[in-house]
């Protein structure tokens, strides 16, 4: 059963990721990104990370992809990109070689060190996972006790990001340009 979930979610993740990289139309690429994000959310659920799965769907698939689509519509760049011309010679083959190299090195490291992983089943305090909201409680205890200072800093980060974006995307009035 878990194998079936893994295979289906992996197909969603990889199919969506290949869609992002290969689709010419930016809108199609954004929708492929949604597929990948949902696949990742399914894998979070199969790891009992229920809160993160919900946040993944709400924040990533909900907010971030909608933001992408807004910008695509706002800028009117939803025309297909012409993939037939290649401005830098041999850029694409080299890019694929580098990508395969990165994946290959990481996979080699994972496979060679897989015996050092603790066997699955020792899990995150399985005894405490009896109640359905145990994951949320554990995560909340971690965020609001050990990492409370980092949590407060993220609010400052979001505030700075919002103000910076308003400043960047603001349309300059002609009187200000003249100064």
């Amino acid at each position, binding site marked *: 059963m878990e*194998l079936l979930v*893994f295979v289906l979610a992996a197909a969603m*993740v*990889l199919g969506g*990721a290949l869609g*992002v*990289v290969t689709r010419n139309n*930016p809108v199609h*690429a*954004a929708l492929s990104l949604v597929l*990948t*994000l949902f696949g*990742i959310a399914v*894998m*979070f659920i199969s*790891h009992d*990370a229920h809160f*993160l799965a919900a*946040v*993944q769907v709400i*924040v*990533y698939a909900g*907010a*971030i992809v909608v933001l*992408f689509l807004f*910008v*695509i519509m706002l*800028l009117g760049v939803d025309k297909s*990109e012409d993939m037939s011309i290649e401005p830098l010679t041999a*850029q694409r083959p080299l*890019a694929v070689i*580098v*990508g*395969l190299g990165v*994946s290959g090195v*990481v996979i080699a490291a*994972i496979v060679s060190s*897989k015996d050092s*992983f*603790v*066997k*699955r089943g*020792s*899990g*995150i*305090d399985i005894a405490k996972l009896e109640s359905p909201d145990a*994951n949320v409680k554990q*995560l909340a205890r*971690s*965020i609001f006790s*050990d990492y409370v200072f*980092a949590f407060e800093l*993220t609010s400052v*980060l*979001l505030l*700075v*990001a*919002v103000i910076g974006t308003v400043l*960047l*995307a603001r349309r300059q009035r002609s009187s200000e340009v003249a100064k």
Partner: protein
Amino acid sequence: MISIVEPTETWYLVLAAVLFGIGVVGVMVRRNPLIMFMSIELMLNAVNLSFVALATSLADINGQTAVFFVLVVAAAEVVVGLGIIVSIMRRRSDANADDMSGLKG
């Protein structure tokens, strides 16, 4: 009766590595800055997946806490990046990273 293979953490980590590689190729191959951004999101998600897989296998909730902070930073990064793209595109209306060489001094 066939023996049922259960996916181990190694499977998830290998999938995350493949997803990261696809994201790397996307950033280098595509010239539309929006799609380059989406490829960066793919790489962030690959890292999140391996964080969660290792949090389960090492029985440590702090891996999931790290994913929470990555999500927040990714949201901030997307907002700022799209703001920059919008303000550039307003001046020059073609979506092509190669034309950004005008940013050189």
